[in-house]
């Protein structure tokens, strides 16, 4: 790991998903993993761009790959599920479709950028699981969880259609890492169902309904919190909870964490540096669980 990883934050991690960035950087620091932010990166284009102009969409995200190439590093860590997928898909389709490759190459050439050689586009979950490993996480745990079982929620674009982050049908790496950190999880059958993404902002009522389903099932399975690996999932489940409760008239309130927050906390990170103050729903429990920590021996 000496040479470290490039880091592609994506727009959300500078805004609504700020806590994801904060906790990710903290966690990686605790594990002595170097993250170097890609200089002058641009928006990946997300799903909207693809809906307007395919060529431009690929060219846009290809610029990031080109910048990465110039930086000389051969792997880039992408925490946002949407960015992760777009970058991977760009690399894949450029390989697979000559017409796309030609368009992108031309577009990059026109601004004096190289067409990047394939590089390793990686999600932090998979980096932690493969490069650090459940065992090392377990050995570094210094705090004891008091927050009750959680439901691990993977959403869609991190686990589909590319399967490097985890198994497609029943992913379990978040559970494994969190179990190692002493945080129990419940079997959660909706872990790879979609939260609707930007629908909450566009066809609001539908977006909210999708999140209602996710929260209801989490409560039904006895989860006290939801853990995510995507800024949009976290935003939807967190920001619209009160609405969901109204809609279903059930009390479905629970904190919605980033897995990096819980791991960072278990490894002794400063709650403030993990973005503990950025929760909207049930912020109280979140704060409580992430601070009231008894130190424990370095094994669980």
């Amino acid at each position, binding site marked *: 790991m000496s040479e470290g990883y490039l880091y592609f934050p994506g*727009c*959300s991690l*500078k*805004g*609504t*998903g*700020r*806590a994801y960035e904060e906790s990710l950087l903290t966690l990686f620091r605790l594990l002595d993993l170097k993250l170097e932010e890609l200089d*002058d*990166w*641009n*928006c990946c*284009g*997300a*799903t*909207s*761009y*693809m*809906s*307007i*102009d*395919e*060529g*431009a969409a690929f*060219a*846009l995200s290809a*610029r990031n790959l080109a910048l990465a190439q110039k930086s000389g590093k051969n792997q880039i860590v992408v925490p946002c599920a949407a960015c992760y997928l777009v970058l991977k898909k760009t690399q894949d*389709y450029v390989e*697979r*479709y000559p*017409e*796309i490759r030609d368009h992108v190459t031309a*577009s990059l050439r026109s*601004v004096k*950028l190289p067409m990047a050689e394939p590089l390793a586009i990686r999600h932090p979950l998979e980096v932690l699981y493969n490069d650090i490993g459940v065992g090392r996480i377990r050995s570094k745990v210094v705090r004891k969880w008091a927050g009750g079982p959680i439901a691990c929620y993977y*959403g*869609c*674009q991190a686990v*589909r*259609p590319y399967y490097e982050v985890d198994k*497609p049908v029943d992913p379990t790496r978040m559970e494994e890492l969190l179990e190692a950190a002493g945080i129990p999880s419940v079997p959660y059958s909706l872990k*790879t*169902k*979609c939260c*609707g*993404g*930007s*629908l909450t*902002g*566009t*066809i*609001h009522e*539908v977006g909210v309904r*999708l999140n209602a389903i996710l929260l209801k099932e989490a409560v039904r399975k006895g989860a006290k919190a939801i853990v995510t690996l995507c800024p949009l999932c976290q935003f939807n489940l967190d*920001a619209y909870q*009160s609405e969901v409760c109204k809609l279903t008239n059930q009390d479905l309130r629970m904190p919605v964490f980033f897995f990096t927050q819980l791991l960072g906390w278990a490894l002794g990170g400063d709650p403030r540096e993990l973005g503990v*103050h*950025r*929760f*909207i729903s049930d912020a109280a429990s979140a704060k409580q669980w992430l601070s009231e920590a008894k130190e424990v021996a370095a094994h669980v």
Partner: protein
Amino acid sequence: MEIQRKLKHQWEAHPEWAHQVAALPGCEKLFSCLQCGTCSGTCPLSIYMDYTPRRIINLVREGFREEALSSQTIWLCASCYSCAVRCPQKIQITDVMYSLKREAIKSRLFPKRFAIPALSREFYSMVSRTGRSSEMWLVLRMAMRSNPLILLTMVGTGLNLLRTGRMALRREKIRRLNELPRENSKAMEVQ
């Protein structure tokens, strides 16, 4: 309640269009669809669509262009790829949906006052100009273009975001804007 005529004449179909779609990246296997409905069954949004994904595939395959392009379905698709990875014929349905969205916007066939095309276009123009998307500005402009009432539903959320410091008020911009791909005027003239 209004009564609709459902008869379709073959001259209303555009078989050649089906083949154009099938020629696009990701849409190659369009014609191998068995109409099994796995896509609709696994889709979290199919329950809100006017046509289920399976029916969209068949509309395209049979060349019913207007029906497919003006459907709400393609805009409800959240690109979660469930259908794409589950289709027993490996049809990349998500890519099919994208190509339909693009054509719908180009040919102005999307549902009026429907927020999503507006969002996409705002997003597109903002990113092409600044290289970054700033959620708040995006939402504002999207709302203005489609249905300002949306904003009301968002006030609360907005305040919460402000309170927790999760809303970027400053508009992000990259340094080397010149490196961004040129805006595709054809796509944008729609505005």
